[in-house]
C-alpha cells in the first residue's frame, strides 16, 4: 500500500493565550498566565472564580460564542488554502449552551431562538461558511473531544477518501461547565498550578484550536500528524483510573500508530489539568511508558482547561513548538510535587524539536494522545486502513412499544412504535446499584448495550441531544438555588459521552470510546466513526444510537418535534466485529454528504454501486425524512427513485418510530431483523413478502434532509 503522510497545512487558534499563532507564541514565551476572574457572564452571588477567557472576541453575532470561536480559528487555519476542506471534524461539548442558558433564564419559548443549541450546529455552521459539502462530524468525548476529532481526521486521510480535513476542538465558557466543575470541587480558586505540590484543581477555560490536515504536501508544512491513540479507562464517570492505565495505553497506541518509539519524542505536552488525581495518574502512566522522560510541561497553568478545545489548542501549540523550536514552561508551578517524580520545564526552552506527544484525557475515562512531528524526518505509518463494512452479530432496540421483540414484531406488522417506554421497563434488567444515579438516556443506552449481547472492547455512540434530563435538572437547580447548589451528579451525567462511558464501565471496554452528535444523523456518524476507527485486529465493538424524549427540551431544541406533540424516543445497539462467520448481515455507510453538494443524489447512486446493481440487489429502502426537512427530503427521495427506477418498496420509517434524532438506529435494527427472518413481511412492503436471497440481498437505510446518508445492510 502507499504510505500516506498527513501534513499540517494550516493551524488556527483562539484561546486565553491570544488570537492567532503569533500572539499565542508570545504569551508562551513570556511564561505568563492568562487566567483571571470570570467576566463573561454575571453571577447571582459570590465573587467570580478564575477562568481562562478568550480575548479578542468582539465580533457581535446572533450566533453562540462557541460558533464564533470556531469560525475565528477556522479562518486562520484555512488562510492561504484555496479550496474548501473535504470534511470537517469538530470536538465540542458546549455547542450553543451559553446562549441557551440565557434564553432559558428569560423563559424564552420561541423555538427558532434555540436553533443553534445542538452540538452539531457548530460544524454545520463551519461547513456552510467554508463551503464544505463532505462529512461534517461532531465528536463529544468531554475533554478529549478535540484530540479524538483530530484522530478521526487522520484515519479518514490515511484511508484516502479525502485530501483535506479541518479538525480540532472548540468550547465556550458557560454556566454549565463553570458551576459544574465548581460543584465537583475540582476548581483551584487561586488559579491553576499543574504538577505543583499545592495544586488544588483546574481552571475552566474556552477557545478553539483547529488544524488543516492534508495528504497533499504543502510548500511549508507546519509538521506532520504521525499518529493517534485512543483508549477508555472504563473505571469511573468523572475520576481518572488511579494508575493511569488508560492514559498509558492512549500514549502507547499513539506511538505505535506513528511507528515511533518513546525515544523519538522530544517533548510531552501533558494533559496536566492541575487536579490532584489527574496529574498523579498521568505521571504514573508516563513512568510506565518512558524509561527516561523528555522535557515536558502542561500549558494549562497559562491557558486554563478549555475542555473539548484543549486537544485542538494543544495540537496547534504543538505545531508552534515544532516550527519555532520553543518548549513552553509549566506556568504557575512553584514547587513540583515530589510524588509525581517529574521535572517539568520551569521556563520556556528554545531547542530543536523532532516530535511532540500531546495528551488529552476526559470524563468517562475517554483518553486520546497525538504524535506530531517535523516533516521529512519520520517515515510515517505502516497501518493498513481498515476495510469497509462491519459484521453484525447481535442487536437490540427500544421504542415506545418496548424492548426488541415487542418493537420488531409491531413494526413487522406495519404498526407504529412511537412513544416513550416506561423507565421501569427500560431499567428492569439493569443492576440497581449501577443505575441509581442514571436518568433516562444512560438507562436507555445501557439497556440497549446489554441487549445487543457480545462483550465489546470499543463503544461508538451517536446521540442527537445527549442527556437532556441531567442537563435540564442541572440548570433548573442552579437557577432555583440562585447558583448556590449546582448538582455534581447531574453535571457528570450531562456530558454527551456519559452514557457511552457507562457502557464501557459495565463491560470493561477499554478500547476507543467515541460519542458523536450529528442531529438527525447522529447514529450515522457513530457508524462512520466505527467503520473508520475499529481496527481489523480489534475485538467486538458496540454501535449505539439513542435519544431521550424530554418534555421541556425536546420540543424546544429538535426542529422536527412540535410543541405539544407526543414524544418518542429510544434507539438501537449493534454488536459488530470484522468476523463474518455467524453474522446476521453486514453494515456500512458508503455515503455521507451535504445535500448542498452538486449532484448529491447522483453521487449517492454511484456510491451504492450504480443503477443496474441496485435494481438487481436492493430489496427494500427505509427512508429517513425528519419532519422539519419534509419538503427537501421528499424531493431528494423522489430524485433517487427517478434516477434508479427501483421497484423496491420504500418505507418512511419515522411513520413507525416517531420523530427523534436517532430514529435511524431503530430503522437499522428493523433492517437487521429482516436478515434474521430472511424476508421483508407484507406489513412493511404493503404488497407481497420479499424474500432476501443471494440476489436480492441488500437493504438501504437512507437519510435525507440537510445531509444525505446511506447505510447499507447486506447478506453475508
Amino acid at each position, binding site marked *: 500500500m502507499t504510505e500516506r503522510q498527513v501534513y499540517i497545512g494550516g493551524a488556527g487558534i483562539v484561546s486565553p493565550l491570544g488570537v492567532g499563532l503569533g500572539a499565542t507564541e508570545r504569551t508562551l514565551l513570556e511564561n505568563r498566565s492568562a487566567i483571571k476572574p470570570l467576566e463573561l457572564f454575571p453571577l447571582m452571588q459570590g465573587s467570580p472564580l478564575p477562568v481562562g477567557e478568550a480575548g479578542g472576541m468582539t465580533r457581535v453575532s446572533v450566533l453562540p460564542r462557541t460558533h464564533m470561536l470556531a469560525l475565528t480559528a477556522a479562518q486562520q487555519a484555512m488562510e492561504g488554502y484555496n479550496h474548501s476542506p473535504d470534511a470537517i471534524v469538530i470536538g465540542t461539548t458546549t455547542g450553543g449552551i451559553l446562549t441557551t442558558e440565557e434564553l432559558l433564564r428569560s423563559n424564552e419559548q420561541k423555538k427558532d431562538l434555540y436553533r443553534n443549541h445542538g452540538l452539531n450546529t457548530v460544524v454545520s455552521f463551519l461547513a456552510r461558511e467554508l463551503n464544505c459539502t463532505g462529512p461534517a462530524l461532531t465528536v463529544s468525548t468531554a475533554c478529549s473531544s478535540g484530540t479524538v476529532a483530530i484522530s478521526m481526521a487522520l484515519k479518514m486521510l490515511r484511508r484516502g477518501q479525502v485530501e483535506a480535513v479541518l479538525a480540532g476542538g472548540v468550547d465556550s465558557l458557560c454556566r454549565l461547565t463553570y458551576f459544574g466543575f465548581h*460543584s*465537583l*470541587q475540582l476548581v483551584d480558586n487561586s488559579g491553576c498550578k499543574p504538577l505543583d505540590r499545592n495544586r488544588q484543581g483546574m481552571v475552566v477555560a474556552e477557545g478553539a484550536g483547529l488544524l488543516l490536515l492534508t495528504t497533499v504536501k504543502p510548500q511549508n508544512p507546519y509538521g506532520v500528524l504521525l499518529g493517534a491513540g485512543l483508549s477508555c479507562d472504563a473505571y*469511573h*464517570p*468523572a*475520576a481518572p483510573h488511579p494508575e493511569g492505565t488508560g492514559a498509558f495505553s492512549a500514549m502507547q497506541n499513539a506511538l505505535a500508530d506513528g511507528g515511533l518509539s518513546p525515544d523519538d519524542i522530544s517533548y510531552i505536552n501533558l494533559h496536566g489539568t492541575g487536579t490532584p488525581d489527574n496529574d498523579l495518574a498521568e505521571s504514573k502512566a508516563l513512568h510506565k511508558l518512558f524509561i527516561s522522560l523528555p522535557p515536558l510541561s502542561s500549558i494549562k497553568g497559562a491557558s486554563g482547561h478549555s475542555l473539548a478545545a484543549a486537544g485542538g489548542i494543544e495540537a496547534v501549540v504543538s505545531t508552534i513548538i515544532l516550527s519555532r523550536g520553543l518548549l513552553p514552561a509549566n506556568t504557575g508551578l512553584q514547587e513540583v510535587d515530589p510524588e509525581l517524580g517529574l521535572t517539568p520545564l520551569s521556563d520556556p526552552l528554545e531547542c530543536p524539536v523532532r516530535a511532540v506527544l500531546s495528551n488529552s484525557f476526559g470524563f468517562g475515562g475517554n483518553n486520546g494522545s497525538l504524535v506530531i512531528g517535523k516533516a521529512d524526518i519520520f517515515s510515517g505509518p505502516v497501518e493498513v486502513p481498515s476495510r469497509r463494512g462491519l459484521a453484525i452479530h447481535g442487536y437490540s432496540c427500544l421504542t415506545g412499544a418496548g424492548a426488541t421483540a415487542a418493537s420488531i414484531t409491531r413494526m413487522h406488522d406495519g404498526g407504529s412504535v412511537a412513544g416513550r417506554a416506561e423507565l421501569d421497563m427500560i431499567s428492569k434488567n439493569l443492576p*440497581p*446499584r449501577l443505575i*441509581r*444515579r442514571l436518568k433516562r438516556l444512560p438507562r436507555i443506552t445501557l439497556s440497549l448495550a446489554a441487549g445487543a449481547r457480545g462483550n465489546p472492547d470499543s463503544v461508538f455512540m451517536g446521540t442527537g441531544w445527549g442527556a437532556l434530563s441531567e442537563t435540564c435538572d442541572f440548570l433548573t437547580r442552579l437557577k432555583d*438555588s440562585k447558583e*448556590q*447548589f449546582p*448538582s*455534581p*451528579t447531574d453535571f*457528570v451525567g450531562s456530558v454527551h459521552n456519559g452514557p457511552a462511558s457507562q457502557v464501557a464501565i459495565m463491560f470493561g471496554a477499554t478500547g476507543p470510546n467515541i460519542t458523536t452528535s450529528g442531529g438527525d444523523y447522529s447514529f450515522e456518524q457513530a457508524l462512520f466513526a466505527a467503520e473508520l476507527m475499529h481496527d481489523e485486529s480489534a475485538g467486538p465493538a458496540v454501535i449505539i444510537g439513542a435519544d431521550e424524549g424530554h418534555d421541556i427540551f425536546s420540543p424546544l431544541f429538535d426542529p422536527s418535534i412540535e410543541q405539544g406533540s407526543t414524544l418518542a424516543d429510544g434507539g438501537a445497539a449493534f454488536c459488530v466485529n470484522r468476523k463474518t462467520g455467524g453474522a446476521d448481515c453486514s453494515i456500512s455507510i458508503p455515503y455521507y454528504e451535504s445535500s448542498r453538494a452538486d449532484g448529491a443524489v447522483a453521487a449517492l447512486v454511484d456510491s451504492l454501486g450504480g443503477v443496474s446493481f441496485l435494481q438487481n440487489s436492493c430489496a427494500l429502502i427505509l427512508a429517513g425524512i425528519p419532519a422539519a426537512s419534509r419538503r427537501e427530503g421528499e424531493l431528494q427521495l423522489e430524485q433517487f427513485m427517478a434516477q434508479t427506477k427501483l421497484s423496491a418498496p420504500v418505507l418512511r420509517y419515522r411513520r413507525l418510530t416517531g420523530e427523534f434524532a436517532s430514529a435511524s438506529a431503530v430503522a437499522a435494527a428493523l433492517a437487521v431483523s429482516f436478515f434474521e427472518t430472511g424476508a421483508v413481511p407484507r406489513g412493511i412492503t404493503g404488497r407481497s413478502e420479499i424474500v432476501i436471497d443471494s440476489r436480492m440481498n441488500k437493504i438501504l437505510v437512507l437519510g435525507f434532509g440537510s445531509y444525505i446518508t446511506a447505510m447499507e445492510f447486506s447478506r453475508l
Partner: protein
Amino acid sequence: MSELIAELKVKLIDILNLQDVNPEDFDENGQLVGGELGIDSIDVLEMVVMVEKDYGIVINNQEVGEKVFFSLANLADYIEKNSSGSLS
C-alpha cells in the same frame, strides 16, 4: 441524635437514590463511602451540598470530609456539633 440519624437515613436514600435500601436496614455505623452501598466521590459531593443546604454547614476540606463521611453516625455527630443548636 437518633432523630437526626433517622432523618439523615431518609435524606441519603433520597438524594443518592438508594432504591434497594430501607431506612431500617441502613447501618449508621457501617462504612458509608466505598462500602457495599457503592457510594463514591460524586455522592460525597452531593452530600456536601445537602449538608450545606439543609444544615448550613460547609465542608470544603478533604480531610474533614473523609472523617465526616466515614459513617452516617459520624455525619450526624458532625452536624450536631457544628450546628448552632437550633436543630429540631
